[in-house]
């Protein structure tokens, strides 16, 4: 085997890694956004990803909407679900014992997953590719057209989020709250509203990730837990609460997984994210890009 084939093969793994990495980045952003407004991890984040794919397949197959509209409807429906969940279950406990919110979101993840099973069944569901045609060849590596969609939409979502954060009052309020919630409240920012908004945004990002990847992987009611763990691993790898770090963490995690498949075996691909998660938690909970925060005695 020539060295050229080897490098094309590596590129192929790189493509797969960047594809998964983009998805992890979106889910990680969801964790980060909710964490920034509540200081708590939303254990239901993975279910937003699941709902995005499930709503999209349902709307497309049963309501006969065109794919693009089905996608938009799925994102809206997921965001609405998240906002309702936040208003009913999270809001009454915001600002209280963080453990309470953790348990509420754990309960929410179980509930959403089971409700999805009842609503959409337990079979794997598929969605057609967003655009027809064969793979695009880059030298010896093939790039699936849907992978381009994944990259494009992920990039668009990140860009939109960046504009929101830097160019709008809402975004500035969210950033201020992330730095110091108490101070934000004192200057008149409605931090409770921001929690609701953050759940909605996190759901949009999760749903987008879930539906854009469904043509490649199919989806089912129980895909949320695994992607939630991976998204969290990505978020914490970069440093929880920092959007840039979430994106970097997602991409790094995707590439790490791909490399492990390339050099070790695919059996333990899913264990890579778990190993990363545990290693980061054990060694540097503030993340690679984060600062360690001291607790005042």
């Amino acid at each position, binding site marked *: 085997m020539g060295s050229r084939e080897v490098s094309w093969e590596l590129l192929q793994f790189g493509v797969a890694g960047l594809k998964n990495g983009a998805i992890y980045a979106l889910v990680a952003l969801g964790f980060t956004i909710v964490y920034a407004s509540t200081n708590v*991890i939303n254990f239901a984040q993975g279910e937003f990803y699941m709902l995005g794919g499930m709503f999209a397949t349902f709307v497309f197959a049963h309501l006969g909407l065109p794919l693009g509209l089905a996608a938009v409807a799925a994102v809206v429906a997921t965001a609405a679900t998240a906002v309702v969940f936040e208003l009913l279950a999270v809001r009454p406990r915001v600002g209280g014992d963080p453990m309470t919110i953790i348990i509420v979101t754990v*309960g929410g993840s179980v509930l959403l997953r089971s409700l999805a099973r009842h609503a959409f069944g337990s079979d794997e569901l598929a969605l057609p590719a967003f655009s027809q045609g064969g793979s695009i060849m880059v030298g010896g590596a093939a790039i699936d057209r849907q992978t381009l969609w994944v990259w494009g939409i992920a990039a668009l979502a990140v860009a939109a989020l960046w504009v929101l954060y830097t160019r709008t009052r809402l975004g500035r309020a969210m950033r201020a709250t992330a730095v110091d919630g108490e101070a934000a409240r004192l200057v008149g920012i409605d931090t409770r509203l921001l929690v609701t908004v953050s759940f909605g945004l996190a759901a949009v990002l999760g749903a987008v990730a879930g539906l854009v990847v469904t043509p490649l992987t199919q989806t089912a009611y129980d895909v949320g837990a695994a992607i939630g763990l991976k998204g969290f691993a990505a978020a914490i790898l970069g440093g929880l609460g920092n959007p840039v770090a979430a994106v970097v963490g997602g991409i790094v995690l995707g590439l790490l997984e791909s490399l492990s498949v390339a050099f070790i075996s695919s059996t333990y691909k899913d264990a890579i994210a778990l190993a990363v998660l545990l290693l980061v938690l054990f060694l540097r909970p503030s993340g690679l890009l984060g600062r360690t925060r001291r607790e005042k005695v």
Partner: protein
Amino acid sequence: MSRLRTALPAVAVAAAVLALPLFVHDRYLLKVLSYVGIDVVVVLGLALLFGFAGQISLGQAAFFGIGAYTSGVLVAVHGWPWVAGVAAAVAASAAAGALLALPVGRLRGHYLAMATLGFSEIALVAFTELKGLTGGTDGLSGIPYPALGPFAARTPGANYVLVWGVAAVAYVVAANVVALRPGRALRALHGSENGAQACGIDVGRTKVVAFSAAAGLAGLGGALYAHLVGFISPGSFTLELSILLVAMIALGGMGSLPGAVLGAVLLGMLPYLDAVVPGLPKSAVEVLQSWEADIYGLVLILVMLFMPRGIAGALRRLRRERGGER
């Protein structure tokens, strides 16, 4: 004398629970109650770790599984006596719990929840992929009934007595621990780690012991389960079980052993309500079983919203408001 008097109601309850098979011959009911008894054993461990020490674990299913596989493999494959298998199961789970606690002991809140969840998923990968040992997704079958020398517990009645006997012992042990110095150290962790350190409590070591005890009891429950059912597969040790156990504590009430038992009985009985409600139509039971997870999720949310200290906490508050200070 006074200790005897306070212990009397508990002894009476234990005797009544253990004597049940003398009056009840419904095999289905006894089987269901045996499973509930196993839940009780496992939940008592989580009560020490989460209910008293405030250290959440979303990974108890992993320890339950380690116990089940350890005893299952040793007894079914290697021909160990049942007692030795169970003892090894408890030791293996407790050791795994201690090993996990060494690094995660520094973590709190959602970090701890995620770390234990991640550990649980890794254990699940191991149960599935170590096919030579565990049988992979096909599972491990032919695990014999519990037996002590010539005496084997083959009937539902015998299994019931065994499980609830173990549960009673576990309860007494846990109650003794929480009533005395080690229990105060656990509760101190929950209250304030700084305060605990200022009292001379080795916070790290206490966490290791608490994790280890909780894991050991989960492993004990897992071993009992493996020998009662005779077959185990990774599907029995998933995140759903871990969350169910947390829901039992949340419903029963943090920091209360009777609450934990109550939570385990209420939620553990739920899918088998027909065993205690004779007239219940089969369709209703099927609906209940199909919506089991939804109900657990909803229970978690509703308890946190309306009764954050669970049933025990609500009763405690009621008593305090009536002015009946202990």
